[in-house]
């Protein structure tokens, strides 16, 4: 009997021990999250204001040894980030949803399974390799230099390649959860398949499609490595004199938040380091906002489906 009691004590001790260990793991993971957010807010908070976000960049200087040393702004990087992300969305979201429709609505055989699988593999390709791919593609196949390697277009292409597999797979999954009864009802009314897909299936999968697109934006928006290779890391606003059309304006080097934080963060000049913290806080806020929005939509959708 004594032996049995000992054994049970050990078992229950192990039970409590492992429960405690699991809780400790959660706390361990939250420490860096807390530390990152705290550092970024503490050091970036005093710098961040509207003038900083929209202002032009200034020359590097040291605040404590030089009079008249300002932090300046990160306007060019903010502009470049949003321009490239916007263009990447214009390419990747329609194309990804179209491919998702093909995989979910028409894909039954080996071909679509292979495409899905390769999209999964493609979403695991390191972003720096994607950047190098766009760089080399423009370098080797665009000898006439119609599209500059260091331009908003090249950066947008790299981001689009990163987004495409994510949008494709999430839209495929979203469309597959639409009950077949809806499609059958549409066919029974004599509605052509393409119309049923566009007007009914896409609409009922709407929320999940938006979530998938937002997750892709969250992933691509936070990228730095590919933009280091192709965007050009310009310190100036996109030069667009009146009379020049927008299409040719965007064929110029642009700045981006990631490369800016990378170069300013390791700079010896105090105004750039302070600026990097401000930029970091702004960058984190945007990325968290996108990610939280995506999750809220997903959460509301699952709540609705649960009811």
């Amino acid at each position, binding site marked *: 009997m004594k032996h049995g009691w000992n054994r049970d004590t050990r078992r229950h001790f192990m039970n409590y021990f492992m429960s405690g260990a699991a809780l400790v793991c959660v706390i361990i993971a939250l420490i860096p999250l807390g530390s990152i957010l705290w550092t970024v807010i503490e050091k970036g908070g005093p710098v961040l204001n509207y003038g900083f976000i929209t202002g032009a960049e200034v020359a590097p200087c040291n605040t404590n040894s030089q009079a008249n040393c300002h932090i300046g702004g990160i306007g060019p990087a903010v502009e470049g980030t949003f321009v490239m992300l916007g263009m990447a969305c214009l390419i990747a979201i329609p*194309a990804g949803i179209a491919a998702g429709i093909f995989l979910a609505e028409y894909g039954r055989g080996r071909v679509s399974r292979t495409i899905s699988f390769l999209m999964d593999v493609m979403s695991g390709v390191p972003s720096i390799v994607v950047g190098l791919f766009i760089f080399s593609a423009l370098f080797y196949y665009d000898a006439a230099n119609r599209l500059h390697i260091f331009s908003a277009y090249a950066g947008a292409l790299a981001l689009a390649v990163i987004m495409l597999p994510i949008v494709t797979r999430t839209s495929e999954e979203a469309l597959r959860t639409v009950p077949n009864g809806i499609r059958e009802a549409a066919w029974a009314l004599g509605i052509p398949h*393409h119309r049923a897909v566009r007007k009914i299936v896409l609409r009922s999968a709407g929320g999940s499609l938006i979530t998938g697109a937002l997750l892709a934006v969250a992933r691509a*928006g936070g990228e730095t490595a590919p933009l280091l290779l192709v965007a050009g890391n310009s310190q100036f606003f996109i030069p667009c004199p009146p009379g020049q059309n927008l299409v040719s304006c965007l064929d110029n080097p642009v700045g981006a938040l990631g490369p800016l934080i990378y170069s300013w963060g390791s700079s010896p000049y105090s105004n750039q380091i302070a600026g990097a913290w401000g930029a970091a806080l702004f960058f984190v806020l945007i990325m968290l906002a996108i*990610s939280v929005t995506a999750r809220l939509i997903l959460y509301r959708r699952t709540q609705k489906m649960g009811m």
Partner: protein
Amino acid sequence: MTPGGAAPSARRSLQLFPFRNWADGLFFSLVGGVAFALLGVFCLLVLILVQGSWVTLQQFGIGFLFSTQWSPGLNPAFGAVPFIEATLVTSAIAMLLAVPVSLGIAIFLSEQSPQWLRTPLGSLVELLAAIPSVIYGFWGIAVLVPIMRYQVEPTLKVWSHGSPLFAGPASGSDVLTASVILAVMVIPTISALSRDALTAVPQSQREAALSLGATRWETTRMAVLKYARSGILGAIILGLGRAVGETMAVTMVIGNIDGTFTSLLSQGQTMASLIASEFGGADYAEYQSAILEIALILLAITIVINIGARFLIWRLVRKSGEVTA
């Protein structure tokens, strides 16, 4: 077969052109064309990297994979060993640190946490994944490097009694710090995916174990973890894929010195950080080609890792599909 899985016998005479009207056919070719274009992009990615690295592929052949020389200076010689080594070592240490923590989180979230805490806590951990990697790197420079340099690394040197593993001065910007930052970065990926694997375990598994008198931990270990093991393995391998390809944070803390390293406290260069820090300065064809070949090797490694992970996860989905059906 008609599109959308409609009854194939309904209109046999139209099998040659299986669409009821031209708009259906157009829509099909449009979305199909886009899907195949994506396939084309993937093939192009591989092809262009092969083409770009053709110079060194021909010049060094298979020897590139086994040479430790990386000297782009006067008598250029290129070999991938130091970078492959650094990539594998940093990722392995990161996995060693991240996997137990991530599994603990997954177990807490799926087995122990009270219901009201699950969603907020799960989202909080997933928020770690939303922070851009350059921010991790910047935080690494400002917070983690000093901690490693003045606290962790001296302690490790004392504890290890001068083991060659921790030889050399504690600088903070080294292979060990890069591994720690990688661990922090892959925890959200691994814990979110393994939590999904754990929550997919049917409730009857747990009830059966509990009814036999097993404690909560014994239930978790025998009925849940064992059932979900291929999903967990898939999550770990997917996390490994992230760690291998992670660029910015590693570039900012690893010290960026090309060459084989002997101690965890020495500077190094992973494949990804090499591309980020040297491609801009690669000023002749052979040097560029060598870096592209490094990218090609990195691509090959991540493709192999991802195929493995997806295969395991797909097998899990098929298995759980059979159970619920």
